[in-house]
């Protein structure tokens, strides 16, 4: 069963998303800011992180850079409501696996997460 860290400063959003993922046999971990996210990453080492780009304080891109430096094997999927290619491209350049727009279709999100996990096994081969 996949372990996923969800990071978003909108509590209602991230907890509901977590609930929905749970119904789909995914173990969600939840953080509402960048610092908390990094802490959980250190302790739990989730294979996939789904993170909002726009967060006060440590933003999604900052956390992404930190994660990639320390744990390059962790896949980060970025979420944003801004809708500009700039964030997406910057994120990709910084090492994000993919980039999705909010509000996101849960099927698409899960597909992307699975695709990220699959890429591990493929590259391992």
């Amino acid at each position, binding site marked *: 069963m996949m372990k996923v860290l969800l990071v978003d400063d909108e509590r209602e959003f991230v907890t509901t998303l977590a609930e929905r993922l749970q119904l789909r046999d995914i173990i969600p971990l939840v953080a509402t800011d960048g610092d908390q996210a990094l802490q959980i990453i250190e302790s739990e080492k989730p294979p996939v992180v789904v993170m909002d780009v*726009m967060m*006060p304080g440590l933003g999604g891109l900052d956390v992404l850079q930190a994660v990639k430096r320390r744990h390059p094997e962790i896949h980060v999927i970025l979420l944003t409501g801004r809708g500009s290619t700039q964030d997406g491209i910057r994120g990709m350049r910084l090492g994000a696996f993919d980039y999705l727009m909010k509000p996101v279709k849960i099927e698409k999100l899960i597909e992307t997460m699975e695709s990220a996990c699959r890429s591990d096994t493929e590259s391992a081969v």
Partner: protein
Amino acid sequence: MTDQGINFFGKITASATHEFINILATIRETSGLIEDLLSLRPVDDSGDERFAGILKKIKEQTERGVSICEKLNAFSHSIDEPRSRILIGGLLDQVVFLMQGICRLQRVYLIRDSAHQIEPPTAIISNSFRLQLALASCIETCLAGALPEERIRVQTELAGERIAIRFVIDTNGSRSPQKLEIPGRFGELNPILNDLEAQLTHLDKPGQSGLTLSLPISSTDNTHE
């Protein structure tokens, strides 16, 4: 940024917010219907308590969306006129609303200082959109000079034939004030300030850093584009 462009943007935003409101209304009705249908069922399914909670949340968020859209609507309509009568208080509310999100991202809080406002409410004649851009620029400049957990207070004061709008960085006394970097001569702000007949200066209060934007209460007609 021509007047045509601005007007078009205003219209597009206005139509967008109108659609948002319609959609929110639909969501409200739909969730209301779900609520009604659930209430008609016999009370035995354990899932129903969760539904009540979910529906309640949906309602809350819908209301949140509606209030945001109303503000956006006001914003988009304020763009229409090249010159109009503007209530300073209302306009500042609008700009603070638009800029709050950006400030929150840096954990800086943008607030209207109720202790320093002009009574009774004052109106000026000006170009609403350009004024909002100027005010937003002031806020961004202050934001660049503020640290997390600090506040930006927005104050207004009457000074003779002009209104002074002050943006004060409230550091809670934790550090000495630093001079803000006002963007250079050829920055985007100058033509706008000239158009508004506004003057932008550093805050002249000792021990505080910030900006003062001074506007004439009634400006001469210089909209010629």
